[in-house]
């Protein structure tokens, strides 16, 4: 049985791209399946709130 890293190498890749849209576009050009997450800083970029969220999750 293939382990998870072997599976990744044997493909196919299904990618969730979080951040730079150019990365998603270049992967689509190579005929990869890509889902783009339109990321924004959580909690409006408030570091204290992010730390709180991280503790809660």
């Amino acid at each position, binding site marked *: 049985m293939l382990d*998870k890293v072997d*599976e990744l190498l044997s493909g196919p890749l299904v990618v969730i791209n979080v951040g730079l849209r150019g*990365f998603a*576009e*270049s992967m689509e050009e190579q005929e990869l399946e890509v*889902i783009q997450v339109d990321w924004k800083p959580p909690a409006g970029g408030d570091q204290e709130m992010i730390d709180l969220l991280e503790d809660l999750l």
Partner: protein
Amino acid sequence: MVSGFVVRPNEYYDSVFLMGINKRLAETEGVLQTAVLMGSENNKRLLADIGIVGDKIDAAKPNDLIVGVVAESDGIIEAVIGSLEYYLTVQEVSVATEQYRSMDEALGVREDANLAVLSIPGEYIFLEAQRALEAGLHTFIFSSNVSVDEELALKLFAAERNLLVMGPDCGTSILGGKGIGFANAVRQGTIGAIGPSGTGLQEFTTLVHHAGGGISHAIGTGSRDLSNEIGGITTLMALDALEDDSETEVIAIISKPPDKRVLEELFPRIEACTKSVVGCFLGIEGLSEKLPEGLHLARTIDEAVDLTTTLTSGQIADPKYTGEDTASKLADEIKEALSPGQRFIRGLFAGGTFCYQSQQILRDAGLETYSNAPIDRTHKLEHFDESRGHTLIDMGDEEYTVGRPHPMIDSTIRARRILSEGQAPNVAVLLLDVVLGHNASADPVGDLLESILKAKRARRDQGEELVVVASICGTEDDPQDLDLQREQLEKAGVIVFDSNGKATHFCSEVIMSASGGSDVG
């Protein structure tokens, strides 16, 4: 000269998208400088540096967009800020990809997703990477500025689940022929590669391609993976995976020297590996450890390519594009054209590995070099903007990239530095790298050409020649036109090589010969 700004709350865009907007706004007549940035603390400092300050900027948060303008009149500032909406909308429309608001939402749509590619500010990586790993996804983390503790925690968490964390600070991977991040379009084949540096892997994979070989997979590990703190977790997992992979015949590791404790673990693992391993540990000096059986050491990336292509069955090195003929024709003229005061090489690199490898090659040739990212700590420049002797600058290093995209995308700073270094009276040779491939600039040579021509012209006006040498890391299948890129350089009188190693050897020959072989550092 006047300045103004606008803050648009809760409008988040990535740095490459904003660079496009910035370029368009800066083209307006009468504009002296523009800054289109998110409201992080670092970016606020950059705005203050160009005199743009205000209470609204102080209060801005990282997901608030700030646009600052320095211009000749208030009217121009108003016009620029007024056109912002239009440019933001035009650029948005060009993105066709379906978009979701969060990782969880995306995972709900595609339960079969197996890789998360993350390129968000480093301080937010831990949360998103952890979510991806919990959902069983491997991760490719392009972002830097992730703490060592967070990296270690993510890699240990992933290793328990047999998941690969490529990164943080991972520029390149090629998995089954598909390039992730900054990668070149290379032939598929039987050579596997592992490395912490994006440009190191790009150089290796393109040179394998030029030599007629092909790549099974190239696995980026992140710049700190081979440190004692991280312990080579990703490198060792990648080695296991490539050993198991039926397509891979030979494995190459391209990196700076691993830390001692990692080496102690890596060497026995290489010895136990059933496939040949080529190790190119740039900058390595005097190994005290016994070399494991099955490890073939290469001094440069070019040598690593020669070794792997020779070790791989059925592949014969057949370089299609070298540029050496042009170089040898010009070499003699060049030596004659230099004036006695022209003694130094200045290297300006987009790729960190190129900067590092060039220092090693020049050091081996007996030349003393200085750098902002030195191969030897005693040769660190006091200030990264002030060169001395033979200086090689990694323009992708932190001091140049805070708040702006990498020089492989945005060459503004490098173009400026080409102009100033090229005109310095004691400079003989400028050494550059040009990196093609997915996500690199659409016209990397075009971005630098005006500065190169201006610098050469200025020297000619003084009766001197400026030698400009460049290596191109790219293939004929890359989105940029390799031949056109090379032609543009050659037309400008630049001597072009297909590898950083060859380009650097050529520079050292020119300098050694011009100085009669003495160390001119």
